[in-house]
């Protein structure tokens, strides 16, 4: 069964300097509170894995916590650039970072392979693109048809962190709405943490509900509004204004640093 603990304890026990860490959530249930706690605890030299880095990884990259970024789409959806992500790649600020980029289809299949304890996944992809020379993909031949397809390596991070709506006291988790790759990320990782909007006495099955049994998770931590400015379907709304405002905050290094000091690093609990 998962340990139900407070967020600082969970991060302290599960996330170490140098870890490959995935904070997943595809446009929905992005674990901001957990990411901020990682920054408050001063974790460094992380390999940050996420299909869509979004504002959260912009903050973590800008704060200098990342050694490497593994991703498939580094934009501020509907708004524009992630300026800290760009500044790190274009100008090496606050320090240079390594990048490893894929397509969404490849990342999604890498998660599936990781959750399945397979070393690789197969897809129709990458043929003819310049991505192929810049990422980890090999060609593989179908032993039945002779067709040549793409093989991509499994993702198996040291730690995966996702956010969900609810957990019960035994650490069983339910999320609903857009499910993304959260189940895969948790199952593919060596260690896992789920932050939740609320702890309930009993999980009531919901339409679209994805349940992660507590025995597959290391820790569960309550973090109300823990995916804001993204959202938790049925509980919080996506704060589109915050995404738009981030475009302004993040353009300038000093403005960014001041904002982080005030809104993230000074805060105590999530």
């Amino acid at each position, binding site marked *: 069964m998962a340990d139900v603990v407070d967020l600082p304890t969970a991060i302290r026990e599960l996330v170490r300097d140098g870890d490959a860490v995935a904070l997943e959530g*595809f*446009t*929905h249930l992005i674990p901001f509170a957990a990411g901020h706690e990682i920054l408050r605890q001063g974790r460094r030299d992380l390999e940050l894995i996420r*299909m*869509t880095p979004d504002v959260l990884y912009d903050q973590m990259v800008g704060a200098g916590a990342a050694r490497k970024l593994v*991703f*498939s*789409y*580094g*934009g501020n*959806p*509907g*708004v524009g*650039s*992630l300026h800290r*992500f*760009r500044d790190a*790649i*274009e100008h090496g600020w606050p320090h240079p970072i390594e990048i490893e*980029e*894929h*397509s*969404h*289809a490849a990342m*999604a*299949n890498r*998660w*599936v392979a990781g959750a399945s304890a397979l070393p690789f996944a197969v*897809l*129709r*992809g*990458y*043929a*003819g*693109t*310049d*991505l*192929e*020379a*810049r990422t980890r993909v090999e060609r593989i031949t179908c032993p039945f048809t002779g*067709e*040549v397809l793409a093989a991509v390596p499994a993702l198996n991070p040291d730690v995966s962190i996702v956010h969900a709506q609810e957990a019960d006291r035994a650490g069983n988790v339910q999320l609903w*709405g*857009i*499910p*993304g*790759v959260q*189940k*895969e990320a948790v199952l593919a990782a060596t260690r896992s943490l789920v932050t939740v909007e609320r702890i309930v006495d009993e999980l009531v099955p919901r339409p*679209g509900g994805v349940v992660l049994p507590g025995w597959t998770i290391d820790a569960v931590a309550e973090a109300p509004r823990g995916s804001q400015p993204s*959202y938790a*379907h049925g509980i919080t*709304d*996506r704060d*589109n204004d915050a*995404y738009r405002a981030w475009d302004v905050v993040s353009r300038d290094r000093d403005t960014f640093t001041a904002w982080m000091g005030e809104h993230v690093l000074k805060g105590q609990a999530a």
Partner: protein
Amino acid sequence: MSSTETAPATTGEIQTIVAARRLTGAKVVFIGVGRPSTAAILARMVHNPELVLVYESGTIGAKPHRVPLSIGDGELAQTADAVVAVPEMFNYWVQAGRIDVAFLGAAQVDRYANLNSTVIGDYDAPRTRLPGAGGAPEIAGGCGEVVVVAPHSTRTFVERLDFVTTVGHADPDGVLGSIPGAPPEGITREGLGLRGGGPSAVITDLGVLQPDPATKELVLVQLHPGATVADARDKTGWELRVAEDVVETAPATADELAALRELVAR
């Protein structure tokens, strides 16, 4: 509503309206955020109420009332016929060829409708780092056809992409020499093993380009009201082919314009 009381369509509005018209006969469309999403919702309002909208967040048959800011807004999940995980979306739906039409944008487009959304300048020392591939390479590989929506400018319509993120019609005659591993005589998208039909149109704020059925090179076939062939040539970074019978885009109807403005204002 009388059109005499309505301000004329902007070039951006006409671009959206032309994109929406292309969905009149479509069954299932795959869309990202921004103008393609607006166009698809407009198509459902005006031309094709049965149109199935698919977003890569896993929402199939979403019926948004407002234009979503992200492809994962809650309203999309709330109104969808089915919501699936991202691996299923790409494997069972996109890769399996169940989507008729996909809308894609890009920072750079070449004459064969290949797309760059990765980087401007050198990959290792980029002038501008763009968001990256996202779903585009496999969407363009697997969907029935692709409609590219992009602003007409020499920054976007370039002789040679800085980076091939997404293959459109590849390099069928070896003119570009830009497809990695392709032989000097060129390679087609079929030759690369891509299954969908590839780009069927590029809709810009000036007009519409379509691939020549034989050579696959983009040809200007349609101009929006007020735009000229000279404009299009000026704003294209290669020597643009122009159809003999360029048609003028039918003006936005009062219904289209009213619906679009009402949608954007929601």
